[in-house]
């Protein structure tokens, strides 16, 4: 009875304000990003002592390329400046010292675990977003519920009811010898309909996507609000996601990867290897937010990585694999404008944490649980993160 009533009320809500479903955009920084140099703890002397050649200097007024003061303790890397206005507006939330219980120090283990939404050695076999979509595919059965930008399906979407991997919308069609692609499409549909298995399911999904994309492509895309996407694959992918959102196809989840964060070697400071990556990230997210200004209530973006890096630099002026990282979330439903979480300090003598990683204060699943509950309206946290009890952090508005 209760469930029926809830469903009825939801339908009523959707009917009223013709708004499309909420979209969650997951940006994964592959390689273990050194977030200590994103949100710089300039108030801690240990930071400068441990990183003699790769620290970011404390904020200075009137100096170009200075870090940007967030509060008495933290400052943004200068290349994060495009995101500062969003922080000021209170829409960009930051949580310090987030991580998983994975102690392997392996990129693949840590990424897999985080994308599966599991504890170490807990084998779930599907991704947290895959489970979320399975448990939440109410009226969006026919829609393009999930896209992954790029060429491979991320583990987080494993098990989702449909996944589409694309790089751009413009070339999504089938060309055949005679030019009559309809009969080829029909025949392919039949062949992929003979048996029901994973491969055939994907064949059907791909054909379904083609039909919808065809309708979107009838006009050229112009970003709104002077949004200026960076000229690289990250910028292009964000632009295509914006296009899909505006196309109102019922997009619920979009996954975008940004790689190049495995900075063992010459990481750089205000400029250099990592600064270039931060620049791409910040410019891309700022353009995406501007372009989607009319959809601010229905789009939320999270940025995460598999682990942070060691608090001290190595002998090649880089950093090795560490533990906790800084988590970012952007949207109207986010309690932004502050750095949540206590600063754990840079001293760490606990062997289990591995030598020199930042101590994990919050399990990443606690944050994702708040997003699922308050932003995506999915209450089945216990099924998405089995055997896990989320801790209250307060990243989202109720």
């Amino acid at each position, binding site marked *: 009875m209760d469930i029926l009533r809830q469903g009825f009320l939801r339908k009523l809500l959707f009917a009223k304000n013709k708004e499309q479903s909420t979209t969650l955009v997951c940006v994964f920084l592959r390689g273990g990003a050194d977030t200590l140099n994103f949100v710089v703890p300039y108030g801690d002397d240990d930071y400068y002592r441990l990183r003699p050649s790769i620290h970011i200097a404390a904020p200075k007024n009137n100096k170009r390329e200075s870090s940007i003061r967030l509060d008495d303790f933290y400052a943004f890397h200068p290349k994060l400046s495009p995101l500062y206005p969003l922080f000021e507006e209170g829409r960009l939330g930051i949580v310090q010292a987030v991580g998983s219980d994975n102690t392997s120090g392996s990129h693949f283990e840590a990424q897999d675990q985080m994308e599966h939404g599991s504890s170490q050695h807990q084998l779930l076999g599907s991704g947290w977003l895959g489970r979320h979509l399975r448990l939440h595919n109410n009226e969006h059965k026919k829609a393009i519920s999930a896209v992954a930008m790029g060429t491979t399906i991320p583990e987080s979407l494993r098990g989702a009811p449909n996944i589409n991997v694309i790089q751009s919308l413009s070339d999504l069609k089938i060309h*055949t010898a005679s030019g009559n692609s309809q009969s080829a499409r029909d025949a392919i549909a*039949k062949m992929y309909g003979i048996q029901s298995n994973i491969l055939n399911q994907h064949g059907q999904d791909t054909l379904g996507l083609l039909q919808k994309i065809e309708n979107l492509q009838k006009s050229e895309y112009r970003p709104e609000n002077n949004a200026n996407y960076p000229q690289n694959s990250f910028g292009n992918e964000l632009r295509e996601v914006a296009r899909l959102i505006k196309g109102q196809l019922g997009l619920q989840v979009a996954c975008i990867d940004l790689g190049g964060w495995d900075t063992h070697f010459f990481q750089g400071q205000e400029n250099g290897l990592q600064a270039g990556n931060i620049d791409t990230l910040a410019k891309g997210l700022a353009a995406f937010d501007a372009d989607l200004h009319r959809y601010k209530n229905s789009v939320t973006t999270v940025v995460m990585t598999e682990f942070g890096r060691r608090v001290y630099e190595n002998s090649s002026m880089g950093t090795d694999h560490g533990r906790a990282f800084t988590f970012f979330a952007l949207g109207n439903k986010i309690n932004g404008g502050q750095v949540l979480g206590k600063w754990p300090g840079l001293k760490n003598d606990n062997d289990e944490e591995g030598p020199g990683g930042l101590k994990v204060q919050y399990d990443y699943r606690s944050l994702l649980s708040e997003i699922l509950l308050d932003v995506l309206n999915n209450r089945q946290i216990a099924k998405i993160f089995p055997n896990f009890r989320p801790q209250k952090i307060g990243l989202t508005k109720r």
Partner: protein
Amino acid sequence: MNRRDFVKVMAGTLSLCGCNDMISAVSKQFGQGIPKTLTPAQQSTLDKDFHFLSRTTYGLWPGDLEKVKNMGRKAWLEKQLQPQNINDTLCDLRARRFETIHHHFSTCYEYKKKTLRSEMVKHTLLRAIYSRRQLFEVMVGFWSDHFNIHIEKADCIYLKATDDREVIRKHALGNFRDLIRASAISPAMLVYLDGKSNKKQKPQDIPNENYARELLELHTLGVYGGYTQKDVFEVARALTGWRYHRRKRDVFFNVHLHDQGQKTILGHTLPANGGKEDLERVLDIVCNHPSTASYICYKLAKRFVAPKPPKQLVTNMSKVFSDTKGDIKAVLRYLFLSEEFYNPTFFAQKFKRPFHFIVSSLRFLAADTYARRPQINYLERMGQVPFQYPTPDGYPDEMQPWLGTLLWRWNFAHAVAANKVSGTRIHLRKLLKSLNINDKEQVTKVIAHFIGRLPTPQEQQIFAEYMNDKDMKKATNQQELLGLILCSPAFQRY
């Protein structure tokens, strides 16, 4: 002058003049075309020889099936295990023409990155398509993933051709310990996994663990192989001091950058002042570790037998691996002759990755290609250009990550069938003639050529409906039929 000599002379001349049309003509003349008659599988279950060939090659070249049926699988396997005895001149005609793949790495620095990138990719693709040493090429692919190097990192692009030649190709069917050693001090690997900046010069220097970790996690023991974080650290210490010199053309050990202290690795002690011998000790320890035998054999069984290979097979293979001290040939011989390999439940259960899908399409069609840009573009859209995988685990050997590539497979299928991939030509009429196809009642034979069995009644009905109002003599109709076969779920598997 016999045929072989003639071909050799022609190879020399042609590869110098680089004249593609002549190469195509000579290739067709000397056995690289389509045989006059072809006898595809005639039963509804997958042909055993077809299964054997589709796992030991990148796809069956027209005539391969008949060859194996004549000489037997065992004899064919033995021949493939001695690749140096297989004449590969026709492949060389196409694949040896790229200068940079023969050069020492120090010379590669004189070339533009674009040239190096393009020549390495073309070389890899053309070898996979045309080499008659197919098992060797398949293993080159396996080890290239296992010891993955992303050529866009730092100087790797100048060094990978040497790694491909001196590490991967030199040892692909050799001994595992030799392979690991070659890889450990390969300049490309020293750069890719930061071994060249791993040092202990000043007392406060902390080792760079990148290579040490991947050596244990990906190259030898596997992530659950029983090592600790301390072992990673100790291996990193033992491998400090290895460098390569761009101009002096060699790899060397600098003892002043080496951590000369005592190390403990997986329960073994490396005495102080081990110097460059520390490398040999580390490699002995990891190569002799039982986890390495089972991890490598598990990966091979997963690649060649089934996504979830039978445990007993992996155990038996590991025993061969340990007994022969890592003889790759012996392990493969055991695998391809094992009972488990011929278990019909594993037939056609593996999913072709994009590279495999494209190469097998071209092989089944005996295509004439020079792997130009339009051909490479398809690999790029499907995300499997050789040497472009960013992380050290290599392109995944699973179905799930590649399921998003179906649209691009379908587009490639139709483009190649209609001869619309520039720089690649197929001779469909000739293939149909060799298969003795005269009317559309015989399309089952065309399908069987590509999938190793007759189509099921349902498949047959779909093809029949598709071809219903079409004249089989018309080229576009033949092309659309072929396109559809290459699009089918059955052709995505092997």
